[in-house]
């Protein structure tokens, strides 16, 4: 299998890019893939925290670019999966320390020894975002079922189309089926209808995601978590497997059967 560079981006901040990167990377590693994550958010790094690798950082991506260390030295091995690595961002520099061609060069160097390179893009559509999408073979756009997040995602999709980056795939994160049912939240169909790109996964709202991020143990490793299951499914789809979408209404089975009986919808 040839190596694939995935970039996770969103436009709006706080929709779950970093969480998605950490979880997908862990899920792919669980499937035995060799994975390297790159934190593209120079100056505001946090993928290291979410992956629980903060205290192992010695060198970062700017050290690699400026020649202070070898690429291998900046790759931090994960605690659980020996084939999962993180290249952290520099916290004390800014986005101008990296250029799109630097990112392309680093990713090309990584291709030889990895199955997936996953880049965590910063929010926004400026330099850091440009750096992150430059080497991408495939772009995953993360959004929340919120009008503002969807509008920013739309902008990002427009830019990706203009730069001929292929068709991006969509992850709808933090969907709350109960709110959707009461018409208090955009449904997955609404979001898809607006963006018109291919859906690769819907992640339900789940408290264990936040707990996992704070502990540096991505939720995907928790076999019981529904969000974890959703991320595992997305990882399978990234590998080209056909996995059916989860029934997010599962927990309200009783309500559903009542609806069926009374014929209400």
């Amino acid at each position, binding site marked *: 299998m040839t190596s694939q560079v995935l970039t996770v981006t969103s436009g709006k901040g706080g929709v779950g890019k970093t969480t998605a990167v950490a979880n997908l990377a862990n899920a792919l590693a669980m499937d035995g893939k060799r994975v390297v994550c790159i934190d593209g958010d120079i100056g505001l790094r946090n993928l290291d925290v979410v992956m629980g690798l903060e205290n192992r950082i010695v060198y970062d991506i700017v050290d690699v670019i400026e020649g202070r260390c070898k690429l291998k030295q900046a790759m931090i091995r994960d605690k659980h999966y020996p084939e999962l690595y993180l290249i952290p961002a520099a916290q004390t520099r800014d986005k*101008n320390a990296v*250029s*799109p*061609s630097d990112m392309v060069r680093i990713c090309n160097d990584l291709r030889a020894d990895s199955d997936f390179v996953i880049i965590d893009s910063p929010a926004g*559509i400026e*330099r850091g975002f*440009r750096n992150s999408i*430059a080497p991408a073979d495939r772009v995953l756009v993360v959004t929340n079922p919120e*009008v503002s997040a969807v*509008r*920013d995602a*739309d*902008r990002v*999709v*427009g*830019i990706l*189309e*203009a*730069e*001929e980056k292929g068709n991006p795939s969509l992850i709808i994160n933090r969907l709350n089926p109960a709110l959707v049912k009461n018409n208090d939240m955009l449904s997955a169909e609404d979001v898809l209808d*607006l963006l*018109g790109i291919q859906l690769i996964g819907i992640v339900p709202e789940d408290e264990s995601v936040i707990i996992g991020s704070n502990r540096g143990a991505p939720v995907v490793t928790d076999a019981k978590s529904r969000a974890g299951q959703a991320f595992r499914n997305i990882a399978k789809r990234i590998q080209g497997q056909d996995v059916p979408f989860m029934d997010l209404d599962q927990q309200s089975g009783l309500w559903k059967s009542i609806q069926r009986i009374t014929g209400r919808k």
Partner: protein
Amino acid sequence: MEQITSLVQIKGIRDGLLATFADAPWEEQRLALLAQIDERPAFFQGARLAMDVGVQTLKVNDLVDLRDFLSERNISLWAVISESGTTEQTAQLLGLATRISKPRPEERKQTPEISDDTALFVNKTLRSGTRVEFPGNVVVLGDVNAGAEVIAEGSVIIWGRVRGMIHAGCKGDNSAVICALDLSATQLRIANEVSAVLKPPKDPRPEIASINKEGHLQAELWQTG
């Protein structure tokens, strides 16, 4: 060298630097610009650059390559001015400005004659952040998403959903109309009239918006036969 660099003229404007090119193939123009920059790196360091490329037709890749190259030298390309519609659209797609504050010299006004029956045909959905401006009518085969803008001196016809902002008759033409299959725009403007959302986005039906006899902007359901 002298010959190459004379293809491009750099001058200071209020918003940074403006590069103007003499007529030549893009590759030569590009090399001339790069040569100028590499000759005086300190002068260009941190600059905001606008380019006037004249009639040159530039594709996305041309502009992306140049922008990346410039950004590596800490120069930010923020505007591309062109007489070519393709180049303008490319620049807009990349989020670059296509106008600088100073109006272009006279020649701008004598761009091809646009009569009442000329229209710009846009065969795609306009996503957030896209802006289409045209000194005539505009037809869009696709949606106009929230955050996108269509500004026309004539009428605007959208074969799709409208969620963004449409301004028809932007130079004051009261007879301009806006038609769409689903007119749930955040804001419509015709000439100097502005109207906020006209109806809830339920049950979409084709509508036509125009200025009525009282001089107000009004949307009506499309009446078939």
